[in-house]
């Protein structure tokens, strides 16, 4: 399936780029203070040719927001093709905004975005975006099959119905996520995990080169989380780029190869072990971090939570899996 010459296999060596590297204005704080920086943050010169060749997504000095509210400030990062990367940070820290900017859904106020070497939207057919579950109208009169079929719609012209190849892609995507038996079920009757499976199937059916997933494994059962992450790992191994937001640090550490820590600006960008780094956590979450006898406990502020049930609080511990 990776017969697209533009997408090579993932590079054997890790390219991890620190935020602020392409910072044109010098307004962003340095990535990690003045302590000895890990290799990923040390910065090395990237030529335009290098970026062109390796990066699926390049963000340079991005500032973006809604109305007059700034959500992202001077964000720079390059995401290589074939990367499985988790974007984490506090609620309201700009995770979803970043995905929307990459997806061409929100025009940045400043800076440039490049997706597969062009501005967002030019290669939109190679992009699949999955919104947060809370943004979906689950009473909408569509079945699982219908939702997954939508992944094929952008490639169909006016008047065209689904072709045999489209039906095949829809069927196999439903198979991959284990929802073939629910093809004719209205989406509102699915459990939370099943809903996430169906939306991932829609993305798979589109056969994209770039996945933009907003909280794909939030609030799902452990089995679903394992299944979905396995699918995404396989996609990344085929050279597809997966960018997923999450506020589950355990999941980020366990399942993703890279992480991008964001709190309005890029705090850190590198291997997923970064989520275990106390300083990264402290700078990402600011006041929401509690240090208790060597154990860092993260208190995610439920009041600003746009997707948690009312009154629910989220506690994450820096030891992956320890909160389960």
């Amino acid at each position: 399936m990776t017969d697209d010459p533009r997408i090579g296999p993932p590079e054997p060596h890790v390219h991890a780029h620190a935020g602020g590297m392409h910072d044109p204005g010098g307004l962003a704080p340095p990535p990690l203070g003045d302590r000895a920086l890990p290799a990923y943050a040390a910065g090395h010169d990237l030529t335009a040719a290098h970026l062109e060749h390796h990066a699926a997504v390049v963000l340079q000095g991005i500032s973006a927001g809604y109305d007059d509210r700034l959500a992202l400030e001077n964000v720079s990062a390059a995401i290589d093709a074939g990367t499985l990367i988790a974007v984490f940070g506090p609620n309201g820290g700009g995770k979803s905004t970043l995905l929307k900017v990459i997806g061409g859904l929100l025009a940045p106020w400043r800076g440039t975005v490049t997706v597969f070497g062009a501005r967002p939207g030019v290669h939109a057919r190679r992009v699949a975006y999955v919104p947060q579950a809370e943004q979906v109208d689950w009473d909408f009169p569509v079945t699982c099959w219908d939702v997954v079929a939508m992944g094929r719609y952008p490639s169909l012209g006016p008047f065209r119905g689904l072709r045999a190849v489209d039906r095949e892609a829809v069927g196999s995507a439903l198979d991959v996520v284990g929802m073939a038996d629910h093809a004719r079920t209205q989406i509102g009757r699915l459990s939370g995990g099943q809903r996430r499976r169906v939306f991932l199937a829609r993305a798979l059916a589109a056969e994209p080169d770039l996945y933009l997933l907003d909280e794909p494994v939030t609030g799902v059962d452990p089995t679903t989380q394992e299944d979905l992450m396995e699918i995404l790992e396989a996609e990344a191994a085929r050279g597809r780029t997966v960018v997923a937001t999450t506020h589950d640090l355990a999941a980020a550490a366990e399942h993703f190869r890279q992480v991008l820590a964001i709190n309005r600006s890029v705090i850190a960008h590198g291997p997923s072990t970064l989520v275990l780094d106390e300083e990264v956590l402290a700078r990402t979450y600011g006041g929401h971090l509690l240090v208790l006898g060597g154990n860092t406990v993260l208190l995610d502020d439920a009041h600003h939570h746009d997707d948690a049930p009312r009154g629910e609080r989220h506690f994450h511990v820096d030891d992956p899996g320890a909160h389960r």
Partner: protein
Amino acid sequence: MIETLLAPLGYEFFVRALAAAALVGLVCAVVGSYMILRGLSYMGDAISHAAFPGVVAAYLVSGPFYVGAAIAAVLTALAIGWIGRRARLRSDTIIGVLFAGMFGLGVLMFSAIPTYVGDLFGFLFGDVLGIGVMDLVGLAVLGGIVLLIVAALWKQLLYATFDPLGAGASGLNVTALDYLFLAIIAMTIVVSLQAVGIILVVAMLTTPAATAQLLTVRFGRLMGLAAAIGIGTAIGGLYASYFLDVASGATIVVVQTLLFLAVLALGPRTGLIARMRQVRTA
């Protein structure tokens, strides 16, 4: 019975009215299926009222009413969409402002005409029995254009309605589809004005689709059912109004509402009776 039903078909005006009512029932149901899922019912009401000054202006210059109505309705629909994207006001606020403002302008122009004009009252409450041959042809062309656009873009419209973010990121021009749909609503309303009138046209758009939504969980079937209900109630309502000698547009809308209430009470999915039965057997 059959003779009774065939009798009015001897009148040409009734045949024209039947054709117009069925056309309106079909086009409104198809467009209404998207409209209710997009939460644009009030938008429909606003656009129909906004068409009134266009109708009056067309009367003043002796032009065809649907041209004036189309210009006023489409401009208002696009203005609501445009202002909604720019001003930091909720869309229902903008609808409230433009809806009343445009209708007020129409009434003002109407009241400035020194002589009594019954024709214009027909546009407020509908007068399908008075539809002329040329008007019917114009409406059929306009309705055909609407159906053709939906036939071409039904998938894209559905995706953009269900998940505008996902559709936009994967290459559909959601903004253009939004504006196009507003224009489609406006054209549909123009097609419907003479049959049911400015005040009642919102029911033609919402009620058949809402009734269908009580009966199915798939969009394709919803639209098909809505179309069947729209055509059936338009014809049934027209006959009822003929035999009862009451206003045609109002009768069609009342028939639709009664059917909606019946399905709500008896329907297999949401039916209150089905629910009561469940409770009893539980």
